[in-house]
């Protein structure tokens, strides 16, 4: 790609035109999300201005168009008129992320999901009087809503309602974060391997969030080429499910072996062809591929024509945490891909933003033009930069649900990246779950979908 960053991103935006609303209709949120050419290089003063305007607009909208959130704000005595400046942002009422998994069964689930929604809900026709979760999800899907779900290790799924604009914003910000951070390595002709469920055939956040790869790249291959339903994820994560659960887990075991073999063949073929490649998915799949290559005494030398994007958590099959630096060193040894082209990301189903490692120091950069990160103490007061605490955020880009979330993650925010010159705050890459919070992580979901026993050892 020639012509500098501006030309690259213009080319990218042309490919992603379907995701961007017409400029004439831009709200302050759209200005903050779609306006900056590089989400990680917005000058601080400009980012502060865009962020405040976007969050104020978004907060007012949720306050006025979401009865549930309005009630919560009333309980906190906080209204749009109280949001005067950056100092008031930490007072915006936030929803604990566990709220998204505290839903009732049957028809109440449909009401719960509908009432979480901000704005004019399309008419939802549920085909049964006492529907199961999949029937409710289908009804919302038919009405044009995207209900992404994700699961903790308990098997209790989290559901987040997204309307089309919110879903498109998720896809765009996700893809643009990756492209901006990997500049100048994005090339639409690169071959991409998504080591995950097919984004077009699942509402599982781990897969769904990657749909935009099909727009940003010409050649995309998918590792788990079958539909993955909420029931299957529940069975893989939480056990039970009777015969269907057993079948789901059995398919998962076969899936792991097939996936590792397929990635290996794909790598061989791309090396022969001298093509550019991008491998995207949870780290443990790539770790399993590298295990296999090492056992067979083989290595590749892709060098600068390859990129690796990981996300979703760093647990292996053995439940241990993979040290990130070791992982990158292995990638370099086994696949010949430089560590700086091996980037990890941090996102969650309740957010549209995606924080990405910088190649220079592998700190997690925040798209700070529309996303306010906070680290709070036990009494939910903001902690100074550099201290560890509960991660919370105000994500202005979520239009269909209040994206003001108190997470169960333990994180540390730094004022500036110690390793690169990008402005704005960064997260220490060692984000973990707080004690007493359910473990989650999209990698863990994919791991359990693929590896319900000693998977990864017998491939």
């Amino acid at each position: 790609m020639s012509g500098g960053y501006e030309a690259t991103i213009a080319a990218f935006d042309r490919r992603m035109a379907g995701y961007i609303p017409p400029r004439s209709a831009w709200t302050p949120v759209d200005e903050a999300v779609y306006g900056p050419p590089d989400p990680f290089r917005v000058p601080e003063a400009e980012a502060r201005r865009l962020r405040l305007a976007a969050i104020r607009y978004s907060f007012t909208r949720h306050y006025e168009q979401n009865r549930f959130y309005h009630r919560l704000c009333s309980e906190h005595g906080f209204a749009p008129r109280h949001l005067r400046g950056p100092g008031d942002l930490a007072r915006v009422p936030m929803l604990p992320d566990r709220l998204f998994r505290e839903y009732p069964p049957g028809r109440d689930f449909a009401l719960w999901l509908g009432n979480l929604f901000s704005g004019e809900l399309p008419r939802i026709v549920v085909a049964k009087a006492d529907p199961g979760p999949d029937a409710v999800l289908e009804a919302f899907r038919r009405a044009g809503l995207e209900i992404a779900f994700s699961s903790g290790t308990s098997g209790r799924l989290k559901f987040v309602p997204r309307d089309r604009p919110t879903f498109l914003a998720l896809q765009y910000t996700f893809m643009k974060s990756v492209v901006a951070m990997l500049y100048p390595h994005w090339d639409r002709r690169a071959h991409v391997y998504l080591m995950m469920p097919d984004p077009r055939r699942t509402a599982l956040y781990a897969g769904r969030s990657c749909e935009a790869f099909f727009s940003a790249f010409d050649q995309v291959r998918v590792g788990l080429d079958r539909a993955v339903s909420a029931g299957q994820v529940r069975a893989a994560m939480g056990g039970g499910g009777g015969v269907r659960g057993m079948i789901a887990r059995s398919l998962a075991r076969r899936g792991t072996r097939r996936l590792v073999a397929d990635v290996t063949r794909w790598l061989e073929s791309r090396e022969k062809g001298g093509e550019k490649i991008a491998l995207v998915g949870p780290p443990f799949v790539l770790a399993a591929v590298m295990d296999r290559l090492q056992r067979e005494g083989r290595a590749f030398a892709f060098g600068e024509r390859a990129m690796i994007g990981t996300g979703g958590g760093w647990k292996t099959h053995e439940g241990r945490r993979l040290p990130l630096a070791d992982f990158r060193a292995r990638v370099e040894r086994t696949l010949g891909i430089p560590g700086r082209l091996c980037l990890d990301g941090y996102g969650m189903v309740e957010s549209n933003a995606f924080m990405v490692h910088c190649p220079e120091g592998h700190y997690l950069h925040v798209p700070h033009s529309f996303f306010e990160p906070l680290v709070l103490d036990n009494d939910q007061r903001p902690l100074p930069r550099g201290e560890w605490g509960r991660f919370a955020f105000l994500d202005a880009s979520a239009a269909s649900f209040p994206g003001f979330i108190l997470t169960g993650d333990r994180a540390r925010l730094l004022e500036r990246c110690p390793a690169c010159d990008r402005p704005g705050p960064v997260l220490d890459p060692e984000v973990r779950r707080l004690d007493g919070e359910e473990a989650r992580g999209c990698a863990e979901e994919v791991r359990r979908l693929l590896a319900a026993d000693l998977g990864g050892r017998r491939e």
Partner: protein
Amino acid sequence: MLKPWEVVGRGMLPPWSMVRANARGLLAIARILLGNLAAVRALMRQSRRWTYEPPPRGYELPEYEAGMVNRSSRKKYLRPTLYCDCRDRRITAMAQRLGAGGTSARAFAETAFDFVKRNVAFEISPLADAADVLGRGAGSCLHKISLFVALCRAAGIEARYRFFSLTMLDNYMEPEFERAPLIRKWYDAMGSFLLHGSGEARIGGEWVCADVGAEPPRQAASGLPLTRFGEDSIGLWLFPVPGTMFRSESVPLGLGWPAKFLMKRFAGTVAGFNAGILEQIEKGRRIIEAAGGEAAYDAGARRRHGATVAAQGLLEPNERIVFQRD
């Protein structure tokens, strides 16, 4: 020797959901063992590194004296059942010490709950009768429930078991899994653990939950509130697998021998698991101490966990959602 109809009447026949769960569990472990012999051997070798020294019993056993009254009877929920001989003299003596007959049913049940939850150390071991658990001062959730149920019945309070298969918070079991990787594999293969439970005592006509399994330091090690009599751990650190919950007067038949066999065959793994529990307890003690004691720790943990939004309004009727008749 109980007659067949007594076995049925006392709830000793396992329900179908449990038979199915057990069969799945055995199949899962058989598959792991047969399909991955080398890996399993390696995991077992890892576990052999661990030794486990049971902690000393944390209380004195009272002597049984003539004239001590045992208030159990032949009525349902008040009579002896499998692994729960509420008429044993050791149980009678302990119930007496805890205030049986001299205090209200609620006060006694709370005292018995506190005694079992705090003083009987959690330990994986073969099933044993409640009186033996009392003598040893250690046992699994099943042992601890049996002891609580026996004490309540000896005090004339109806008590029963509640069982289910479950999934758990990952970090809750981390120290145990770390030392017993084979159990982690089993858990992964099943997607859930086979059996857990709590006791229930009938107070004023209501069944009240008694989650005696986890000692306070174990809960503190994961940053959880310390559950009290009447409070459930469901949704806190454990999540029942839908369709597996059942309530029963007795521990079902058929659990003893498989547990004994597995614990004997995989002694190293069990020792590793138990060593992990001790480490978890030690960690929790340090956390409670640093917080300024149990009350201060619990207040803080409840504040953090109680942060869930009062979700009123999320179930209000919504005219945009229409349900069709089947």
